[in-house]
């Protein structure tokens, strides 16, 4: 069902946990399957200096969370905002069609975290 890379990220997910000193926290969830995700970011000089996640969900959801956090670490907020759910799925080498909606969670939570950060800390920001 899942390819090796997905299984690998699922088995050994990167950046699991909470950031006690997070600059922003974003959440997302799927009403349909109940999956929930929380992304914690630490921002420095407009870049994601540190990132952690917590995910309740299936293998795809966990693997996507791990993949996403790896992809955006060190990226500018702008760059991070451009990362789509599809990018995450692609980077994982593809997800089963039935599971695509799970990878949707990861980027959503990140975007929520960034938007919230900017709303609070970048006075001229508009969504």
């Amino acid at each position: 069902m899942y390819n090796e890379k997905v299984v690998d990220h699922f088995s050994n997910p990167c950046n699991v946990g909470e950031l006690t000193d997070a600059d922003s926290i974003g959440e997302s969830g799927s009403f349909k399957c109940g999956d929930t995700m929380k992304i914690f970011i630490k921002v420095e000089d407009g870049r994601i200096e540190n990132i952690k996640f917590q995910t309740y969900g299936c293998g795809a959801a966990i693997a996507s969370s791990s993949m996403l956090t790896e992809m955006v670490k060190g990226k500018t907020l702008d760059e991070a905002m451009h990362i789509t759910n599809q990018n995450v799925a692609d980077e994982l080498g593809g997800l089963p069609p039935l599971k695509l909606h799970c990878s949707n969670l990861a980027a959503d939570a990140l975007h929520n975290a960034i938007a919230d950060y900017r709303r609070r800390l970048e006075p001229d920001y508009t969504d």
Partner: protein
Amino acid sequence: MKNRLVYMDNGATTPVREEVLEAMLPFLQDQYGNPSSLHTQGREVRRAIDEAREKTACVLGADPAEIFFTSGGTESNNLALRGTARKQASAGHIITSGIEHHAVLEVCHDLENEGHRVTYLPVDRFGRIDPAAVEAAIAPDTFLISIMAANNEVGTLQPILEIGTLAREHGILFHTDAVQVVGQRPVNVNDLPIDYLSLSAHKFNGPKGVGALYKRKGVKITPLYRGGSQERKLRPGTENVPGIIGLGQALELAAAEIPYKMEYLTSLRDQLIEGLLKIEDVILNGHPQERLPGNINVSFKYIEGESILLSLDLQGIAASSGSACSSGSLEPSHVLSAIGLDQQTAHGSIRFSLGRYNNEADIEYVLEKITPIVEKLRQISPLHKTD
């Protein structure tokens, strides 16, 4: 790298026993005649099918003429329910439960669309149907009650003796989906007021794609489809000969070991349940005693079923979340909802179903592996408060 393979998904399907395969092989080799053919090759195969029918009948306490081979449990259920409904002169009322297999529930939905009324009885938190509720639901035009002998997800045994007795008292036909029970616990249609019963070979170490419907003599149903005169026209089409032979052999062997296997599996089951309940925030689904000998269904709070399954799979442990059929879907199982689990708890439920090849070492292995899996997934989960 897997350490070992522990198959605990016998509720979904079971391995074919070696003796069963051996019995089937001649019918995939030299004994290839069409049982409807008049020549020696045909007659030999006809005889073998007759024997399989006799074995099946014998185990159930039925007459061979009351056994109809089908392509599995799904077809048997459809044949019994639709076949009975089509025999009714006018639309009427059916009683079933909310926790039946889809092969009963969805047929009932169809029958509703065709004008019949259906009562879907609720169950208690253990998954039991109350016979009093059955009685209360009986209407003057109730023509059929269909209640499963045991639930495939949570393993709860149903009071089919009581329900069947009620049905008979009211002159209502009684069908039971016994797919999970036949071969696991004794089922005898002489002791039970059952009018039809569905069974499926792959649940008792027989091959997939073959099942049977027991139909008491005199009960009339309309076939689902037509063609040749096989299975006395109730189920036409060239017979799945190796499958039927396999079913007969598997059932005979399974029935013979029931007393021993029940005790053995019950003991393994209770060990596993005991071990699992030692983990924090784990709840047992289904009835603590009145359950299938090999069924364990637990909910691991704060974490999600598929990720547990996947983690188990990576350790070589095969289990399932909900029923095999519904695990491809995203909605929480209708059974777990019916016993009152909230959506999240339902999503964290796992079924381990034991079979004749499991042993104590398997139980230990699962318990050894599951604890860190649950711990790790809970660490990842935002729902779990570690403090």
